[in-house]
């Protein structure tokens, strides 16, 4: 049995997604409740860090004497510029104020540890659906139905907006002329991205996200700097968008989509595009299995000279055979769009399921 890598590209499927806080907090929705993408489902206070004041050193006193000069008690709220320490002498006195808002967390070995007032972190649903389950203090699983497309790389951000396909076909790049006030709030789809100016213009026009087949590898480190998510469906080698994905996004034109741009993507947590749709009869349930390679399946080829091409498995070869360069591996004969049938080793096949 050969189990190749897999990419989910489904027009209509039941989807469950976890929305969890980075640290424990409070869940503010309940099981079964309908949520909208912008709705806050959980919140927590996010630590901003600690400030250390070397009190003994500043006062010029032994470590054990520091508490005698404290003007506030441990655990007390403090405000910026409020006095914390005072040492009065015969001829002069020293006073030190708090550099931050927060609490005096601890007095430890002559130091004052101040905990800065944490920020409120609100976790939004980011997709419309029903709260399927609640993990108390941490977050929820949201269930919805709709289109699900897995990407291969994301810039690390999340977004929500209307899909707008800006190129006529999957092999064209997104260009500056595609972006104007008309695309404000939209998620733009194009074959590939190769110009940084496009990103600047997208940012200036409040674009909510970009989905492309590929970006140049040198550009990838810059993408997390943009406030909207950028998702790549194929890779960094100049590939156009896979036809199946491009077609499905075309069919989703003007529909609301959620982008999850996980940067440290693993097979279990890949970046993805979810277009919520009304549930119909017989919607396929969440898939948990990794299907084996079989004739008739649609596959994407991951390496040159066929990188990015999508074809159909004609024959599976479960035992090793020679590739064109002499590598011996199991694989499959794949029929490409131009009718050519080529043998592809299984590690280079990505099953589109």
């Amino acid at each position: 049995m050969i189990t190749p890598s897999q990419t989910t590209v489904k027009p209509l499927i039941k989807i469950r997604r976890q929305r969890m806080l980075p640290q424990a907090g409070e869940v503010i929705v309940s099981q079964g409740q309908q949520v909208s993408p912008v709705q806050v489902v959980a919140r927590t206070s996010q630590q901003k860090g600690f400030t250390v004041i070397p009190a003994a050193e500043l006062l010029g006193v032994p470590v054990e004497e520091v508490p005698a000069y404290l003007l506030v008690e441990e655990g007390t709220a403090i405000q910026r510029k409020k006095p914390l320490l005072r040492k009065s002498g015969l001829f002069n006195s020293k006073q030190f104020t708090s550099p931050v808002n927060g609490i005096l967390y601890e007095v430890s070995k002559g130091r004052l540890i101040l905990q800065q007032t944490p920020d409120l972190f609100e976790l939004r649903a980011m997709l419309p659906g029903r709260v399927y389950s609640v993990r108390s203090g941490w977050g929820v699983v949201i269930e919805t139905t709709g289109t699900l497309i897995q990407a291969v790389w994301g810039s690390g951000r999340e977004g929500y907006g209307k899909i707008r396909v800006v190129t006529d076909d999957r092999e064209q790049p997104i260009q500056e002329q595609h972006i104007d006030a008309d695309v404000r709030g939209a998620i733009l789809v194009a074959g590939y991205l190769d110009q940084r100016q496009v990103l600047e213009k997208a940012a200036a026009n409040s674009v909510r996200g970009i989905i492309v087949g590929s970006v140049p590898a040198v550009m990838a480190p810059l993408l997390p700097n943009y406030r909207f998510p950028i998702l790549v469906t194929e890779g960094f080698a100049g590939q156009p968008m896979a036809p199946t994905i491009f077609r499905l996004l075309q069919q989703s034109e003007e529909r609301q989509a959620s982008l999850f741009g996980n940067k440290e993507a693993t097979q279990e947590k890949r970046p993805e595009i979810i277009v919520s749709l009304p549930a119909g009869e017989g919607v396929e349930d969440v898939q948990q299995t990794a299907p084996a390679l079989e004739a008739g399946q649609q596959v994407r080829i991951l390496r040159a000279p066929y990188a990015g091409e999508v074809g159909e498995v004609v024959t599976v070869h479960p035992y090793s055979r020679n590739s064109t360069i002499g590598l011996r591996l199991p694989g499959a004969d794949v029929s490409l769009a131009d009718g050519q049938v080529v043998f592809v080793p299984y590690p280079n096949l990505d099953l589109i399921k």
Partner: protein
Amino acid sequence: MSEIDSAPTDHSSFLVADCGKSVTTVALFDAVDGMCRLVARAAAPTTVGAPWSNIIVGIQQALKQISEVTGRILLSEHGELIMPARTTGAGVDHFGATISAAPPLRTVIAGLLQDVSVASARHALHTIYADEIHTFSLADNLTEQERINALLEAKPELILLTGGTDGGDRGRLRELAETIEVGINLLNGSQKTHVVFAGNRAMREEVTKLLEKSAAYQVADNVRPTLETEQLATTIDILGDLYQSLKIENLPGVDDVKAWSPYPLLPTARAFSGIIDYFAALYEGNVVGLDLGSDSLSYAISGPQQQRLLVRTDLGVGAPLPNLLNEVEPGEIVKWMPVEITSSQVYSFIQDKALHPYTVPMTEKELYLEQTLARLLLRTVHNEALVSWHWPALPPLEMLLVRGTTLVNAPRPGQTVLTVLDALQPTGIFSVAIDKYGVLPALGWLALHEPLATVQALEGGALVDLGWVIAPAGQAEPGKLALKIVVDSERKGNLELDVTSGELEVLPLAPGEEAQLTLKPARNFDIGFGPGHGKKVTVYGGDVGLIIDARGRPLQLPQDETARRSLLRQWHWDMGG
């Protein structure tokens, strides 16, 4: 009568699983004509992640494949391993597992001098699967507050605190320990952070008093008792145990695996270094092992004088590949390519390969590129090993053992030999073998528990011999004599050969075929017995043959691009294309 009810056999069979990040390989060893042999192996995806979240599922899938191929039933109807083996042929007597599927241990190294205590701490840390996520030293110029906040952000599982020679500086080490104490008190949630103190022995009592309540605390010998000496043994042992308890023991499904085996689960890198130790003892010489994986790179050397292991979890041919660019410039990679390519193409390829880490090349150009990247990954770790172990050069070798898909699945075996020769540039007379079937960790496990079975399995061909290499050290003008060789073999008779400086020669010598060599190096070349000193040696053939590498050390590449690519292509052709 079910398989489980039938009687046990009177010989031992062994099933060893190696659970990697992406692939679980299972090897079955059993008696064939009274000798232990590798009888079957199978691989299945590792199932630590969703949707399975149980490591044993991948093992069971691989076992089912073995059953399909051999007809031998290994699992009961309920998916339990049938143990011991039955007279019907079902089941197996012993089960063991080696594991590299667990994530690396998130570690902060804290020490004083970068080149002294911090370097030694790093040497110890690089013997396990660990990520060095932050480093504190005198050179970092961080304030106490910055260090505390860095600790809080890094959320380490382990802090390895070193610093100070025995009886040396106390003040700065005290400050560092106090900062760590404040940091971990703020960090500690439901579980305490682990701290291993391996610094100035004179500070042991004070640091222990400071940290033992806040941390899950252990003490090791000072890794740097003097500026000139390094003692890592106790730290390495503690780190190994921590990796075991914090990472391996927490893998989903690990209890199910342990229920099958009375033996402790072994990190794959340990099993790998174990088999290298085994070969070193067998040959009474130095043996180097290279394991170039997708997510890590292990480099082991063992011999009469030393047993060393270096594991890098930030280097590999898969997802960590972009980290190679922190070590070498794309231009250096271009320099080793026998075909034209730009730095930007190299950069794009590396980033794209990291997205699709398990893919394989389908064009000659990408094949060359993957082998070039393998060469530079190995070279990077080799150079680090030499520095870490304070060696001016690699000592004379008896054997080089190679593992990892990129290397062992090369279309032509000569490409594997050329890659490792270019990377390590070893000298002397040694053999090269590859782990074609992915069973070296299993053999390492077996060597620990059944050494005799290991000998028999190796005699039965568990590894693939590529041949012997004669690589004289030295330099001379191209075309000048480097080495005179007389090859005497039963099948081919007598052959005399003059090898000139710069040449790479391969003489056909089939696997298992024996040949007597009379070697006489030129005055400025050394094959391990002193410049100009020769010797008679017995060598054996392999899939490549007898390789004479008279290119000199270090290897010199022409400055001119065309000449350089032409020379690299020549070397490929010399090694069989």
